[in-house]
């Protein structure tokens, strides 16, 4: 049998031999992913760059204008506000999502009755389609019919309605609250998974040596959880920086551009007004900032892992 098999190998078509070569096999296995990435990531990205250096409008291909669109952005006060809004939105939400998510993960890591149910419920904000839950929030913050205002009024906490979405700062606060509400479960569950990989022996040994809970957290749990935390934060920063749905539904970028983020401003100009090239330029302006954040974080993660 072995001899026959060996004989067939000699006469086998080259295709089979190709697949036996590890390099070829690896390439074949990677091909579907590469095609998908090329079609849905690389092509739109290149197309975005091409659009951003033309003056294309809806239905008109446009001509090459070099960096004209970016020069225009540099003198656009709304763009500066968008950059500030996005940085603020990302920074504040990430800090709160991390703190609350970690707290929740530590609680969920303990044993209590109905643990499985609680863990499932925690995920709800993350599972519900964002647009749907954001609409509910929009009603809760509605200038006229806000249930939050009504409750606080009934409890005599306020004597006049709070103008949640009509005041620039409060509108920003509102979308930050919704983003935190939506993002905490992702942090909690991911960090919980990280916590469960930490051997309880370490904590027990430290406890026997007389380490207090806070010390055990700071010297054992936190360092061991750090690699997972960094990856979760990285994911979250990328997603929050490019966030669209919450702002689009809640405020549409208003009042008077006070809550516009990169994605919503790009959408308003590119798709809403049909100024495709200007929209593309705004989206692309997000890239270097995000790239920098990602590189810094990845370098840090590598350092942590080596240590």
């Amino acid at each position, binding site marked *: 049998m072995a001899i026959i098999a060996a004989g067939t190998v000699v006469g086998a078509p080259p295709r089979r031999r190709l697949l036996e070569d590890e390099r070829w096999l690896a390439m074949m296995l990677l091909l579907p992913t590469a095609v998908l990435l090329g079609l849905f990531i690389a092509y739109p990205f290149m197309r975005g760059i091409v659009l951003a250096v033309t003056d294309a409008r809806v239905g008109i291909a446009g001509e090459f204008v070099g960096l004209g669109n970016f020069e225009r952005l540099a003198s656009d006060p709304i763009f500066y506000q968008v950059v500030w809004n996005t940085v603020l939105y990302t920074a504040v939400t990430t800090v709160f999502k991390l703190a609350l998510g970690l707290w929740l993960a530590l609680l969920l890591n303990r044993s209590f009755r109905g643990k499985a149910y609680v863990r499932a419920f925690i995920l709800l904000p993350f599972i519900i389609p964002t647009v749907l839950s954001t609409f509910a929030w929009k009603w809760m913050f509605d200038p006229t*019919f806000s249930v939050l205002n009504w409750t606080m009024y009934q409890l005599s906490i306020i004597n006049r309605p709070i103008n949640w979405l009509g005041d620039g700062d409060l509108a920003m606060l509102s979308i930050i609250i919704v983003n935190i509400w939506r993002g905490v479960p992702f942090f909690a569950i991911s960090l919980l998974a990280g916590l469960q990989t930490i051997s309880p022996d370490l904590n027990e040994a430290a406890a026997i040596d007389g380490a207090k809970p806070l010390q055990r957290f700071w010297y054992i749990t936190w360092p061991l959880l750090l690699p997972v935390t960094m990856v979760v934060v990285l994911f979250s920063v990328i997603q929050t920086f490019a966030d669209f749905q919450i702002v689009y539904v809640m405020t549409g970028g208003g009042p*008077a551009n006070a809550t516009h983020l990169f994605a919503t401003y790009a959408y308003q100009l590119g798709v809403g007004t049909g100024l495709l090239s200007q929209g593309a330029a705004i989206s692309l302006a997000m890239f270097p900032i995000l790239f920098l954040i990602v590189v810094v974080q990845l370098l840090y993660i590598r350092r942590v892992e080596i240590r």
Partner: protein
Amino acid sequence: MARIHRRNFLKLSGAGALTAKAGGMAAILASGRAPAYAQTTTVHLLRWNDFVPACDQLMRQKLFPEAEKALGIKVNFETVNGNDLQPRITSAIQSGAGPDIIMLFNNHPHLYQASLVDLSDVADAVGKDQNGFYGISKGNCSADGKWMGMPMAIIGAMNAYRSSAFAEVGYKEFPKTWDEYRDAGKKLKAKGMPIGQALGQSFGDPPTFAYPLMWSYGGAEVDDNGKVALNSKETVEAVKYMIAAWKDAYDEGGLAWDDANNNRAFLSGTVCSTLNGGSIYVESVRKAEQYQTADGKPMKDDIRHAPLPAGPKGQFGFHTFTSHVMPSYSKNQSAAKELLKFMHAKQNYEQWFTTAKGYYTPGTASWEAHKMWDENPVMKPFAIAGKLGQTPGYKGPPNAKAAEVLSKYLIVNMFAQAIKGTSAEEVVKQTDAELKKIYGA
């Protein structure tokens, strides 16, 4: 009972199916034409979710089924939020596929001019038949004598106000000037019933308020020669008025309102007046029992309409305009044109127009004298909305540049930004700079 085995069953039913199929084929061959489903053209029409829902119902349940019969086509009628029409047409034109007919607001057809079918044949015929189009129809939908959009109707913008509330503070008639309006609003706000004005980024009420306010103080985005002239002491005065009046007399939530918020606020009795189409009143008539005043009377009997007050340089108006355009990617252009003609045929258009009870003012002059306007004196002011009012871009034409300014909400945001705290001089200067980027310095 004879048992039927699986194989036998398959043989039997297979034979039956074959026979049926053969008969069907034979019938098709005998008739000498393809089956109907392969032949029918489907015209895809995209409109907004109508603020008078009865109009959507009429189209869906009566007019389009009739059109399908009369024209031998199928009509795919889709409705979306008004603010989503522009994103939809952009993506449709870019991908070269989508609805055959799309509704647009104001002068937006100018933005998409390069990708639209010339509808002059349809428009000219309707204009000839119905005493000609108003200037506002021509401005918004045509350029160089060509029609890129087919005017559908004007949504007259008037202040809907609670006459009893204004009477209580000494205004038997609606205030004639902005200063009087602010005074009345101040007194009413003290009583917990401020003026409500939508000033968010939404297609209808925010621009139809902000533009006329600016014009009535003498401000305009361009001068008579088409040069940007926003940065003037007149515009600054208008903005200053708004900053002060907003605190004194307006519901401060309005910065976050879209076109639906003020309707809800008015109908729930929290505001005394708001600039709107006739939809608030039409709704209050339709559900008279649901919408009542604080003392339990039908709210409809308390609602009146009045144009925006006058400023130092006169009284102005800007009415939301609606039209239909046909992107040139459409493969069903002749069928779609037939559908447009059907919609504008007098007997069909009349049904739709009367269903709206005055919310829609037709874009042609012959309807001014229609008997529907005599049915209800409260809606009568809307009869001549087509004659009044300027188009966006005034004192210049409502061209693509003016459409870009409108679509970016630059004028609306100028006022909103000032209310938020930027000084009037600064915000006018900033907006002027933005306008120059669009119009050229």
